[in-house]
């Protein structure tokens, strides 16, 4: 079975948690075994959103995941990026895993959004999904679906 890692950033942005659940749902439906790596606070949001683990079955602390990560551990990396630190984490996970990767970049400030996208473009070959978004996950979801479709074609 193909394995995907969904990497969450700081849970401050409201769109991240619904997009995390949605991405796990989509990737599972595409045949991936999905693990979500996150901070303890982002994990709490997931646990409350999906109390019976209907969608999110495998969760791991981001630091523990990073510590034990090796090339080949996952077939796909999906990282949510809405802070400078999340850019650094995504790029680091990308370089360790050396596999197909999608960076889901979202920010309400267009300048910051552009900076994050440039940093990822300049240091990885990841597919980038970017949207000006904060509260509303729809623009991110639509572009994420398109990127997944491309990946599967």
């Amino acid at each position, binding site marked *: 079975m193909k394995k995907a890692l969904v990497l969450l*950033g*700081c849970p*401050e942005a409201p769109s991240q948690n619904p997009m995390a659940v949605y991405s796990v749902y989509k990737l599972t439906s595409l045949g991936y075994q999905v693990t979500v790596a996150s*901070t303890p*606070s982002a994990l709490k949001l997931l646990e409350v959103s999906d109390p019976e683990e209907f969608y999110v079955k495998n969760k791991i602390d*981001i630091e523990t995941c*990073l*510590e034990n*990560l090796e090339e080949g551990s996952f077939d796909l990396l999906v990282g949510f990026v809405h*802070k*400078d*630190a*999340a*850019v*650094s*984490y995504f*790029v*680091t996970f990308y*370089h*360790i895993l050396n596999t197909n990767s999608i960076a889901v970049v979202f920010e309400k400030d267009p300048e910051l959004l552009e900076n994050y996208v440039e*940093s990822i473009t*300049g*240091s990885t070959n990841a597919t980038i999904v970017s949207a000006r978004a904060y509260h509303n996950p729809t623009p991110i979801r639509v572009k994420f679906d398109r990127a997944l479709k491309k990946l599967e074609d």
Partner: protein
Amino acid sequence: MTFCLETYLQESENYEILISRAGFKDCIEVIEDHAPETIHVKPGEKILGVRIIGIPPITIGIDEKKGTITLPYTKPCYGTAVVELPVDKEEIVNIKALDIKE
């Protein structure tokens, strides 16, 4: 016992934070301005027991005279900080061996 940066920062006061809650690029500039010698490493390399997080090539500062290294330290919700801390000579040799020599 193996040196662990996480534990060291929690238990010791013998380190200096040069900048905190900053962007990664700003932190790299601080390291380059501060350290007399720099090397560059790949993201994910382990230094002092932790994986170094950032955008390659990641600059690590070395001050052999003071016996310190200066490195970026990133946490998801707090951004990146630059920490200068003392390390022994042997560790400096190990860290220099990670240089990707641009």
